[in-house]
């Protein structure tokens, strides 16, 4: 494959990892939502580039869905939720941003060490996209466990889905039907989560997971 095309694909995949790190670095709610919009934008550009070099036009639709739904609609909705819930302040990480990013580096190294030897038979493009995609998934999971705030956990969950899209488009042959169904399920999940967040906020006056833990009712 044309080395320039390969390099640009790598650039987008590496850019996605970089934006995942930027998500870990944020300490303000509005910044987090904006960087998530950037995350979705990079994934849609990456998918569009894959559509161009793999000559698979249905991937353009995937890119358009990612751009429209996840880079525009969902961040807009999240901004409104955040303002109405009144939680636009700083996010408290559990162990501090430096340590979280150090753990992130370890996860990227781990995913590279796991993925590259396993996929030795596949083409270079697929191999490295898979390694980067696994990194994005692990970083999304790290974000979910290292933040106290429910909205940031939702964003971590959606960044995992972006990683899965990267993996699927890199490995060639992702049917459009799969993409549409996955995107719809994410949208439905978001609506349900949003409703739950409102109810939680009404009941307990907070969405801080740590404080909510005391209300579980099973403890003495």
């Amino acid at each position: 494959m044309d080395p320039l095309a390969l390099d640009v694909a790598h650039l987008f995949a590496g850019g996605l990892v970089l934006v995942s790190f930027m998500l870990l670095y944020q300490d303000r709610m509005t910044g987090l939502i904006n960087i998530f919009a950037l995350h979705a934008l990079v994934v849609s550009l990456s998918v569009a580039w894959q559509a161009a070099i793999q000559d698979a036009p249905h991937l353009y639709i995937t890119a358009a869905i990612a751009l429209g739904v996840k880079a525009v609609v969902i961040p807009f909705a999240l901004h409104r939720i955040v303002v109405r819930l009144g939680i636009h302040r700083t996010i408290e990480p559990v162990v501090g941003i430096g340590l979280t990013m150090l753990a992130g580096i370890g996860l990227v190294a781990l995913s590279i060490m796991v993925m590259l030897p396993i996929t030795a038979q596949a083409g270079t493009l697929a191999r490295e996209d898979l390694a980067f995609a696994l990194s994005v998934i692990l970083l999304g999971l790290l974000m979910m466990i290292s933040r106290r705030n429910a909205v940031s956990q939702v964003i971590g969950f959606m960044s995992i889905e972006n990683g899965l899209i990267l993996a699927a488009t890199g490995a060639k042959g992702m049917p459009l039907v799969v993409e549409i169904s996955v995107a719809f399920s994410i949208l439905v999940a978001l609506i349900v989560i949003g409703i739950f967040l409102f109810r939680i906020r009404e009941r307990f006056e907070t969405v801080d997971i740590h404080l909510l833990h005391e209300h579980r009712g099973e403890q003495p």
Partner: protein
Amino acid sequence: MTKVAVYGFVRIVFDLLGPPSWWWGAVVPLLGGVTAVMGVLYALMEHDLKRLLAYHTVENIGIIFIGLGLALAFEANAMPAAAALALTAALLHVFNHSVFKSLLFFGAGAVLGATGERDMERLGGLIHRMPLTAFAFLIGCAAISALPPFNGFVSEWLTFQAILLSPALPQWLLKFLIPAIGALLALSAALAAACFVKAFGITFLGRARTQVAREAVETDRWSLAAMFGLAALCLLAGILPGYFIDALAPVIHPLTGANLPRQDELDWLTIVPIAQSRSSYNGLLLFLFIALAAGLGAEVIHRWSSAAIRRSDPWDCGFPDASPMTQYTAGSFSQPIRRVFGSVVFRAREEVHIPAPGDVRAARLHVQLRDVPWDLLYVPAARLVNYAAERLNRMQFLTIRGYLTLVFGALVVLLMVLSIWQ
């Protein structure tokens, strides 16, 4: 004394144990890197001058073991030239460390002798009372912080060059681990510079904080001669490193089977550890250039500008003459670093008690550090040793028949072992 341990390690692992496995080259540098960073963080939290220097030795030993571990990794993968480079870096650092650490300890001893104080927070302004000691101590601080053109920089540069050879290693774990260890090495070097700015600045610079610091007297000529001799050696080993590297060659060759290129044939006394196209360093030229630039700057400035100097009170943002106790102390100097690194590594916590307005009692600052390796590793080991010693102490008080029984029992056991093994 710590060099005896390094010698034992080199002798046993490189000489007696036979060909190394590749994972030794992962464990040893990792331990070395972690030791280096932890050692310098310990040193930064100290305000006793001698304890600071002792903890800092921990960092230097960590750096030496990074070099030794890299040599093991390269040797396990049949890369003798790279192993020679890593081993040279480690051994050169052993030499450099003994020179500049001795110089710093002599200086600390001189300060202790002149003032009776080891606590930096009770010193200050000693550069005016002990100018020659201060000058030698400054050379030691600059050398240990790996600043060119002194010798600390040469061994650290060689270690970095060895780290940069790591992509040739086949194992993935080593390929990823060694750049990370390079990051740890760079971090420890930067923290060491911070540590010695604190050590020299709080002890010698500023204003005297107590009466003994105000009345300190310079040490005797013989101590000063020893310190200046070591300081001159620091500069010499930094400017002419090629000779020292060549002097190490007869040691490196039997241990690794390869040699660095001969350094004393190169132009202008440059050192080239691998190949000219890859990297080179010339301490003498750098030193001359810095001296020339400084001299040129001074000459031009004094030609064109006024040479007037007026002594006055410090500006201090317009505050009138404040007491020397408003200066930064050792604890306050390391506060940003304590907050950034120490809150994780030492669980450092600061508590401030400020009395209510109108109350004239002093405010209190309480800093609490927890030494995690001490609590987790050394305290249980010490307890185990104590327990075993208690038990074994019974053997001091046996009767003669008891001792004879022991001798008889040992003889019988040895004969049984002999019979079974045959």
